[in-house]
């Protein structure tokens, strides 16, 4: 990817971010002290089922359908073009057909639907992921 090569030149050789002296060395002790001071104990998770509003579900499904539709149309277009030997450059161009919002929606959709574990799904829902 040409643009990827272009931006590689701006990558710093060293991490420009620093931490205060001894930060990592003291972190674990401070954290465990905080846990002890507050008397925090692991808790059995009382997961409450949060029902996503119907309208929100429909918005998500509709957005996913739109993305899928665009994928299909773009895919068909690429396929037809390839068949007729008219080069459509790279799949990178196809990706550009999507807006940020569509991509974010697709990512959100996958985050919600792509989890195997029910607890994880509930966790994200309850944590307003």
């Amino acid at each position, binding site marked *: 990817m040409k643009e990827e090569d272009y931006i590689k030149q701006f990558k710093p050789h060293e991490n*420009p971010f620093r931490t205060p002296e001894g*930060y990592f060395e003291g972190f674990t002790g401070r954290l465990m002290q905080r846990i002890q001071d507050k008397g925090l104990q692991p808790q059995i998770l009382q997961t409450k089922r949060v029902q996503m509003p119907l309208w929100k579900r429909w918005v998500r499904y509709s957005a996913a359908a739109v993305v899928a539709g665009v994928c299909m149309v773009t895919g068909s277009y690429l396929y037809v073009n390839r068949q007729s030997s008219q080069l459509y450059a790279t799949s990178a161009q196809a*990706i550009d057909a999507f807006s940020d919002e569509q991509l974010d929606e697709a*990512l959100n959709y996958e*985050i919600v639907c792509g989890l195997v*574990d029910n607890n994880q799904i509930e966790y994200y829902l309850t944590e307003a992921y």
Partner: protein
Amino acid sequence: MSPKWDEQLIVEQLRDNRQREQAFTLLVDHFKEQLYWQIRRMVLSHDDADDVLQNTFLKAWMGLDGFRGEAKLSTWLFRIANNETLNFLERKRQTLSLDDEAAIGVATRLESDPYFDGDETALQLQQAVAQLPEKQRQVFNLKYFEEMKYEDMSALLGTSVGALKASYHHAVRKISVFFHSLD
């Protein structure tokens, strides 16, 4: 990272009331730096990263009984950290108005940050990265700075490799445009 890391043993000890505190200490020692940098690249300031990291481990400690060992500890912690980071950024966005954000600016904030040593290019890069939507920024950070494989990222974020590639491509395009505009 601690020299001896036996994940299976740690998981067993975390389930044992008598050993869990000691095991959790080892867990914090093992993952604190990795998680810190993941968080820091998103929130930028050390103080904010420290807060989010502490909250991440506190949530992990409180939710220890919810960890069933189906995912790796690193995946479980990464997801908690990720969630904490996004929640933190959301809260911050709600408290700061857009004008405040625009007035301060990432470059200005980092320039006055005692824990940032970057040169002008590093500042510009951070400025360019900051303009990305949060999830795109996350994908960009993991790929560009951490050089994480898409497959590993996919397992951590629960997103398909294709969607991650598309997101990264968009981010690269925007950052490239940003730097071209400076020429």
